[in-house]
């Protein structure tokens, strides 16, 4: 598979922003860093979602479930057993992997497809939200406040935003690398084949159920690392800001707008949506949900003008531009 020349150029051009990202904390103020952290963080989460929903075409409306499982596992282990979240996040990923395999297995065992799979994942996240709201050992509706230890890098706690900035940057880059590797592998071909024609994939020897379950498991485990990051950054989690459907929407909209099933899509989507969401939040302060209205407007515009997302749209435009 040879990549088209605009594609190749885009990847070379990426070196420049990467260098800017690396040195940015030296100049940037804390508010800009905060926005950058969230851009990277959502790009990461959305890339995890993209692996399942963008590539494999199994649309998840409940990715908050995996974020919540990751956040709660590491936070619970830290507050109850003083286990460092650096270890806790791997346990969270393991728990989330099991949850993902479980959901995937029961959904695909009974052949849930399209909207039905989407609704099942959404329902599952809601079940977890309500369950955790009523679990006193997990803090119930009050949530979990993580014990503060000041500047304690070994406990995933830092003073200042720069360390979180670099962690989020690394997470984003790792997720991009994972997506890139998948795209070029047998697994990636199988994921896309399942997305585009499941029956034909079966006829060509693809164990479609197995590969769909793998996609859910991988995506779930990766998303859980985001959950731990979220918990450590805010030092506070509650069911309504982890397991909530709004969180699921926040995660998936970035891929949908940037371009599903592409490596760059989630990142580009996050660079568009996240700053807008943060700016609306700070300008319209108390009026919660205002950022969702902005999402709605952008989503409408993208659906009309760039139905496959911003990245595929730009790519198409570049190809046309070059051939002329």
């Amino acid at each position, binding site marked *: 598979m040879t990549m088209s020349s605009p594609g190749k150029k885009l990847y070379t051009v990426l070196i420049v922003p990467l260098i800017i990202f690396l040195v940015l904390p030296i100049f940037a103020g804390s508010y800009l860093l905060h926005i950058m952290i969230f851009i990277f963080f959502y790009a990461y989460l959305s890339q995890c979602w993209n692996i399942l929903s963008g590539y494999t075409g199994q649309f998840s409306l409940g990715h908050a479930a995996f974020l919540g499982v990751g956040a709660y596992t590491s936070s619970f282990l830290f507050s109850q057993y003083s286990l460092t979240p650096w270890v806790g996040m791997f346990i969270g990923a393991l728990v989330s992997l099991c949850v993902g395999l479980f959901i995937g297995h029961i959904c695909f065992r009974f052949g849930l497809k399209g909207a039905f799979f989407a609704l099942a994942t959404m329902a599952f996240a809601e079940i977890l939200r309500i369950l955790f709201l009523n679990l006193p050992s997990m803090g119930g509706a009050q949530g979990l406040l993580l014990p503060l230890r000041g500047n304690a890098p070994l406990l995933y706690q830092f003073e200042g935003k720069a360390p979180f900035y670099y962690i989020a940057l690394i997470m984003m880059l790792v997720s991009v690398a994972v997506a890139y590797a998948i795209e070029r592998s047998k697994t990636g071909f199988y994921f896309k084949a399942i997305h*585009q024609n499941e029956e034909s994939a079966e*006829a060509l020897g693809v164990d479609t159920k197995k590969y769909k379950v793998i996609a859910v498991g991988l995506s779930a485990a990766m998303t859980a690392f985001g959950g731990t990051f979220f918990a450590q950054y805010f030092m506070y989690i509650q069911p309504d800001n982890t397991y909530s459907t709004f969180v699921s929407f926040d995660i998936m909209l970035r891929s949908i707008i940037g371009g599903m099933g592409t490596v760059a899509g989630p990142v580009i989507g996050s660079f568009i949506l996240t700053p807008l969401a943060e700016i609306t939040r700070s300008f319209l302060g108390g009026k919660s949900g205002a950022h969702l209205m902005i999402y709605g407007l952008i989503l409408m515009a993208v659906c009309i003008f760039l139905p496959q997302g911003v990245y595929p749209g730009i790519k198409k435009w570049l190809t046309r531009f070059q051939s002329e």
Partner: protein
Amino acid sequence: MALLEVQKLSKHFGGLTAVANNNFVVNQGEILGLIGPNGAGKTTIFNLISGFLRPDQGTIVYKGKEIQGLTPHEISRRGLMRTFQTAQAFPYMTTLQNVMVGGFMHDRNRKRVEKSALETLEFTGLVEQKEKKAENLTIGDSRRLEIAKALAGRPSLLLLDEVMAGLNETEIAEAVELIKKIRDRGTTIFIVEHVMQAIMSLSDRIIVINYGRQIAEGSPEKVAKDNRVIEAYLGEEYVIE
């Protein structure tokens, strides 16, 4: 030698009998044709053999092992592959990538799979279309792609379901040549086709079914003269006693 042996194969959909007590063999190295009027149950037989449907009764023995009840991917991994009546490509992949999906069945290495996929494209006459998205192919080329995808999985037995539907005379002649070439490379072929001149010239033997029942079997010349076949296709009044 029988590569595939079907015994007492039956399938019902509610009250409708789609396939009733079929018995036949596909011999190693032959081209076996399956014909019958519309709705006779030809595609149902293919779906049963390839695992997309489960038979109500009967056994399907391939390479000496029973395969009824296996999933489609398990069956194709054993070398029994099929094409679909309506070309079922991966629309947003290129022609080359489509064929690579089939090629990954035996190999993980992307470079090697790409290389052998190019050979398959060369063999099927699609190499100039390799960078084209499957959704943009002509009917003729998408039929070729349907065959090429399956060939990438290196089948021992290939079920071809109406690969010539909608093709013009030239394209039909090319398809006939391609199918002969595939057989000459050692792949046994079981083909459903409505284009009579093609199936008559291709097949070593032909099975005729009507309403799910086998009504005739034998060489193309023999079934063409068979009164039950003429009756099934044209009606009783055309049978010359």
